[in-house]
């Protein structure tokens, strides 16, 4: 049973949970994700990357940001609660080898999926530089965990409240201009950030790998909803990915497709929040 073993609020909208899932913990590798539902009758299926796993405890760690109805609902789950449906690990694991110099660029919540990848890269003997970008100081997560791994850690915030006041592409460009330019860049974060990271490295011809998070239903290669244009081919993120060559991904199309259900999703979210609010009012009245 997929019980929640531990829950921590990392910032206003960001939560960490450890979930009992011994089989997934045993099999998962860096780069893989799970699909979960908060209700197995009326819920939707959402993909979330696995941030960490503990085979002794038999748990996986997810870190998620509240962006819609299901993540909002998930945030209301507490220790001891059971997740009605959890499937994984899905997707191809990250290809890890000793590339030499590796740069990990993480935007916002992207630090979570990057954590096991950075760990694996370090273990494989790479020199690892980690760039963490966030809107503001309180949204910088897992800083300490990443500092332990990184040979070099750069923090960027939009408002300068932590680290340097810059977008992640600024230090990335600088690293590309060094004599010892990166052998690989891995970028995980919002699509627009991954797009601009790929554009930043393109002129320097540095291989840039991105991890895509598209709309998915089943996550096992059946629905085709997660398709993206990569080079001249159409790929399914769930079985061909989630990682692809950022220089080949058609980010504009991907971002457009992510907005397909925007209006409906907004309504669902609003209804859910209002209902929760009304219920709490009722409880107070009692």
């Amino acid at each position, binding site marked *: 049973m997929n019980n929640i073993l531990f829950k921590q609020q990392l910032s206003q909208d960001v939560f960490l949970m450890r979930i009992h899932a011994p089989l997934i913990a045993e*099999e998962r590798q860096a780069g893989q994700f799970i699909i979960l539902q908060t209700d197995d009758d009326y819920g939707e299926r959402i993909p979330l990357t696995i941030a960490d796993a503990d085979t002794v405890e038999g748990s996986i760690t997810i870190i998620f940001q509240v962006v819609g109805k299901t993540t909002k609902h998930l945030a209301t789950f507490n220790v001891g609660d059971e997740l009605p449906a959890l*499937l994984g690990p899905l997707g191809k694991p990250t290809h890890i080898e000793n590339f030499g110099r590796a740069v990990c660029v993480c935007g916002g919540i992207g630090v979570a999926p990057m954590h096991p990848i950075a760990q694996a890269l370090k273990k494989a003997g790479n020199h690892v530089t980690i760039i963490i970008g966030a809107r503001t100081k309180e949204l910088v997560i897992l800083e300490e965990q990443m500092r332990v791994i990184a040979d070099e850690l750069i923090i960027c915030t939009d408002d300068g409240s932590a680290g340097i006041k810059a977008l992640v592409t600024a230090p990335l460009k600088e690293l590309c201009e060094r004599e010892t330019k990166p052998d690989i860049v891995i970028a995980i974060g919002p699509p627009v950030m991954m797009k601009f990271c790929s554009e930043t490295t393109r002129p320097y011809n540095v291989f840039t790998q991105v991890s895509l998070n598209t709309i998915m239903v089943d996550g096992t290669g059946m629905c*085709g909803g997660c398709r993206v244009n990569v080079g001249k081919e*159409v790929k399914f993120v769930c079985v061909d990915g989630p990682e692809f060559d950022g220089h080949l991904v058609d980010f504009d199309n991907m971002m457009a497709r992510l907005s397909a259900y925007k209006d*409906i999703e907004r309504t669902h979210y609003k209804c859910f929040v209002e209902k929760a609010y009304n219920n709490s009012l009722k409880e107070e009245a009692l």
Partner: protein
Amino acid sequence: MSYRTAKELQEEAESLLNEYSARAATLKVKERQKIPSQDMPVQDPELRSHNMEEVALGYSFEQAQVEAYRCLQCAKKNCMEGCPVKIDIPRFIDHIAKGEIEQAIAVVKQTTLLPAVCGRVCPQEKQCQLHCTLGKSLKDIDSSVAIGRLERFVADWERINDKIVIPSVKPATGKKVAVVGSGPAGLVVAADCRREGHHVTIFEAFHKLGGVLRYGIPEFRLPNDIIDKEIETLAAMGVEIKANFVVGRTRKLTDLIDKDGYDAVFIGTGAGLPVFMGIEGENLIGVFAANEYLTRINLMKAFDRKADTPIYPSKNVAVLGGGNVAMDAARMAKRLGAEKVFVVYRRGEAEMPARKEEVLHAREEGVEFLLLKNAKKILGDESGRVNGIECVQYELGEPDASGRRSPVQIPGSEFILDVDTVIVAVGNGSNPLISQTTPQLAVNKRGNITVDETQQTSMKRIFAGGDIVLGAATVILAMGEGRRSAASINAMLAEEV
């Protein structure tokens, strides 16, 4: 054929029953030939195109009996040859004619555990009913004995009257069988292996069982509670069920044998990978694979206001393809409130792979058929949303390798169809997950798992069947493969005792 209400059909059946019942056993062939084929009562088209309820209502007892009188009880049972699971058709129909429904269903269930499903979704006109002597003597396949409807009738009778008999299970053998995928092939293997006393576990990636029966076939054609009932029967037989478990990822296929001690594995993962047409604009917003469209609705209940899973709001929908899946998607779009729904198919109606009955039902519900036309390019607006398709007209040329007259494009016949949603239903490829994670497993060029005549794969103890072997086929063919696989597994395990 015009729409007739259930009441009209019932009155007709009652009067026919009055006429024939006294001498039912002694009717001559000529007399049987004269009894009109009993139409299936269906919901009013106007009503049903706005609800999710089952379209076909099922025969009444009287209708079933009259239809059973039509059966000639041929000495040579041609109909059975067309049935992939070899139901003793004349025998179960004879029981219906005598009013012995309990005996009739018992005969059916000797060979199939899913009669309520098969009676609804099998392409009977291409299987049992194709070989029916009555249909042949009347030179009209639509005049064959309605075997499928009778099968459905007895299965429904059993379920509605709470008469489902849980099949007996032999004493435990201590052997373990893993069934990967809970679609029609997997369900058959689970039942057949469990009956022999083996411990059986079904692994399903989704949170609910049934595979394509659940996510692919809409409730208006196959209600979910019928699938639930079949699964309940399996559980009552002692089959272990593990949902949310994707073999290949949650556990490697080989680990099921090496670490978990399964003595045999059956792979029935189906043909899940959607095929696209490879035309411009297929990744615009508003273009869906039929799988995604139907899964959101059938499995995730996106039609229900309570559901979180969103569905794309559509006004004018084009469905590309001419198979049963295309019909399901088109009729579903109508039910979700689309004003116009077009089926765009590049050949003619005669060449359409969909069942005739489904095409008829779609037409009755207001789906428009654009035959001998094909999409050339999907057009979008500045925000990347579909706002039309460029189609081109075809004519039929010489027969191609499939024996069907091949469509030939008419140059300069392009026109634009004004739609905001496109559903691609041109077929499925094999699901790549197992072969991707089990490189030693032999597959063919199309990714289908190759098996020998016993359904065994290139790997010891591992069998496969259904669409993952056949490519996208039918429920009943998958069940036939499941039956054969189970027999091979049972034989292999019996030798090892």
